[in-house]
């Protein structure tokens, strides 16, 4: 019984350590630079679900690692208009492709789904209404500008 309690405390500590810990979106957004008129912005985020919390693959955007898919975290990338793709890799590569116009903001949510041996972290496009609601509770985990 004592061992079970210790294991439970350890598991909680490990999983909590996996969660993003930066400022919340509502706070961080106030100091976010304005988007340049010749660029678009892509927000990458992952909800706070504990499912697969230990899986934190890099988010590779147009071949460049721009951050990590981290439980409860978000970050953004400003980039040129045109075609883009984002990839997360666990036991397989999962990719989403989309276009970005000048001045446009798009949202990519990464979420954990079932795999054969380990879970997959899958990136998908999300509409702005849904994304802004979900982002409100998330923590900023970095800035990357391409």
């Amino acid at each position, binding site marked *: 019984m004592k061992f079970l309690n210790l294991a439970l405390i350890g598991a909680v500590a490990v999983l909590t350590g996996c969660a993003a810990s930066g400022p919340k979106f509502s706070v961080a957004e106030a100091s976010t630079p304005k988007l340049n008129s010749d660029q678009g912005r892509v927000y990458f985020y992952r909800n706070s679900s504990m499912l697969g919390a230990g899986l934190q693959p890099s988010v590779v955007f147009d071949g460049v690692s721009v951050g990590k898919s981290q439980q409860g975290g978000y970050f953004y990338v400003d980039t040129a208009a045109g075609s883009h793709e984002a990839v997360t890799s666990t036991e397989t590569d999962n*990719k989403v492709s989309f276009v970005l116009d000048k001045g446009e903001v798009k949202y990519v949510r990464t979420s954990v789904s079932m795999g054969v041996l380990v879970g997959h972290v899958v990136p*998908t496009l999300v509409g702005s209404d849904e994304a802004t609601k979900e982002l409100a509770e998330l923590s900023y985990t970095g800035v990357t500008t391409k």
Partner: protein
Amino acid sequence: MKMSASLYRFLWSGGLALSLCACAAVQHTSTHFEPVAATADATQRVLAQGLEIQLDTGYRRSLKPGSHWIDAGHVPQGEVYKPYKDVLTLEGAQIHEAYLVVDGGVLVGFYLPAERGFSPLGQRPAISLQ
């Protein structure tokens, strides 16, 4: 112990089946997209009735009644409509942003803007954009 092994096999088989189901790629061929003139006002259309779409990859998509769509241009296969303040994706082995392609009141497939490709639909439902 016997039960645990059976359960493990069941879960592993289920995971394998799910993974294999998700492996069908979204088929598309390259197409020529002619966007509406940049100076023209974007024409908005409203989807009169909701639509359930069965994708050839096995996934489904629901288009909500009352959703707004912008006339984005055309491809040889039909008129292209992109969602207004929303996104539509096709899902197979990978996920692709997609716009509707409508010809003669029928949803004939999707335009994939990132790939500049056309992905035809096997089952082509009638669609009413007003």
